[in-house]
């Protein structure tokens, strides 16, 4: 038994090959990685929380779109039945295990984070990178800017 991190790219490729999908998914790869330095301390920053989970129990095959909710009225749970995660090993019954809005609230109370932006965002995991780069990522950016986000915390399932 190995304790090395699971190689999800290899695992996913084999799994879809076994389903008869001939063209393997090409995971995005870049030579350079962007970097922006903090403009002000985290304790003074407004944070945008971004998840891949959905606001409703989306079905496999349903089109996926960027959606937002109010951080002042956080959902009791979010949904990911149509997404790939380890449904045998774990569950999404505890919101804060994948969408840490309560934990962030505690850190705000402790003075370690300035606050949350008015909205949180649900971003679809799309097979199409063109769609993510051309539509969804700019859409999330626009919403973050509208809300005055200083920093963003992304929590993929």
């Amino acid at each position, binding site marked *: 038994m190995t304790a090395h*991190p699971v190689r999800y790219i290899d695992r996913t490729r*084999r799994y879809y090959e076994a389903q008869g999908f001939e063209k393997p998914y090409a*995971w995005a790869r870049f030579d350079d*990685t962007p*970097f*922006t*330095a903090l403009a002000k301390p985290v304790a003074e920053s407004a944070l945008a929380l*971004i998840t891949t989970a959905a606001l409703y129990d989306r079905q496999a095959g349903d089109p996926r779109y960027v959606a937002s909710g109010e951080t002042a009225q956080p959902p009791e749970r979010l949904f990911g039945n149509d997404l790939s995660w380890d449904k045998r*090993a774990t569950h999404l019954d505890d919101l804060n295990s994948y969408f840490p809005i309560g934990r962030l609230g505690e850190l705000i109370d402790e003075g370690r984070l300035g606050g949350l932006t008015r909205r949180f965002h649900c971003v679809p995991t799309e097979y199409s990178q063109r769609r993510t780069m051309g539509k969804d990522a700019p859409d999330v950016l626009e919403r973050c800017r509208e809300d005055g986000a200083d920093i963003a915390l992304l929590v993929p399932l």
Partner: protein
Amino acid sequence: MSLVARHLEEAGIPTVILGSAMDIVDHCGVPRYVFTDFPLGNPCGRPYDADMQRAVVATGLELFESASRPRQVVRTPYRWSPDEAWRDRYMEIRPEDVARLAAAGEARRAQRQELRQQGRVRSE
């Protein structure tokens, strides 16, 4: 999600990803990453373990301030279970799964084609 992080970062919003898939994020290249070596689904800590969750999230907040260059990765110290079998079971293909997976692929392609014909897909 890595693509969204890169896009925000390019536009001047610093990002941290909390995640459990080291290879996928490493392949793409992201500014700051907190890696918790758990089954996919609980990147912010074990369910109902508020202390662990707070520590994972705090690690993310600290990384905003400590990182001075891109591709900074912090690995949290937590272990999912003494039983490591989950690692091998994810997307496992046993001999008895082969026929079922092939049929599932066929069904999925047929469903996609049907959705396309009905126009129930994203257009942009």
